[in-house]
């Protein structure tokens, strides 16, 4: 009885989210970032006269730098609250998680704070990326024999 009442109260006071609008915003902002990535890639390939495959690396680095810098200025958090997956899924989310952990834990010291906590949020991406890449790599290597 008490539990049900509590549950009702919680559902009543949880702010209703407009899921359709959220999805639309994430689609728009994620798509915009994709276009910016392609523009930067073309720009670097043209300016530096390098193949497009290497220009992708420059593009990723630029986006990571922008993500870190905007997190430092403090308004990236608000943007992430607004666009949610539109900014978390692109590589900027990786930079944002790392930078915010670095800023938060710096006051606890360089080794025990900054050093051991910097990969707190981004660590799972790296760990599971490596594990899945190793397992799928073995599968692919046994079936197709490396890159064809």
């Amino acid at each position, binding site marked *: 009885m008490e539990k049900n009442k509590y549950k009702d109260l919680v559902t009543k006071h949880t702010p209703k989210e407009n899921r359709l609008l959220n999805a639309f915003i994430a689609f728009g902002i994620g*798509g915009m970032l994709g276009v910016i*990535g392609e523009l930067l890639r073309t720009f670097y390939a043209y300016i530096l006269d390098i193949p497009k495959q290497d220009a992708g690396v420059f593009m*990723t680095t630029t986006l990571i730098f922008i993500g870190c810098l905007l997190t430092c200025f403090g308004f990236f958090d608000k943007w992430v609250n607004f666009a949610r997956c539109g900014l978390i899924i692109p590589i900027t989310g990786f*930079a944002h998680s790392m930078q915010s952990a670095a800023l*938060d834990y710096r006051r606890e010291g360089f080794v025990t704070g900054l050093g051991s906590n910097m990969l707190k949020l981004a660590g799972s991406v790296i760990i599971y990326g490596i594990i899945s*890449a190793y397992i799928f*790599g073995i*599968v692919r290597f046994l079936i197709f024999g490396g890159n064809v």
Partner: protein
Amino acid sequence: MIYINAFLFSGLICLLGEIILDNTKLTPGHITTIFVITGSFLDIFNIYDYFVKIAGGGALVPITSFGHLLIHGALDKACDLGFMGLMMGMFDLTSTGIVAAIIFSFFLSFLFKPQN
């Protein structure tokens, strides 16, 4: 045309993530992990390479490309050296992203204070 493809591909991946985030109890950490695993899974059948070809930077910006690049570098080395190459080449292509993120966030954390 490649810009439209880039917009649609990158947007659709973010849309998928937003739908998962809104309708389940998974946190953003879970979702990025799921997408990295998906990216490396799609590379078994060369599907992600096709996406990169048609969508260009739009396929390289989402976090799925991180998994794709991990397995891509590993397989490149594995062609020459066999199973040991899987471990040696794992970071060949992604090292720039990880190193850049660590260095930028380390030095920028000196210059700025946390803002709440």
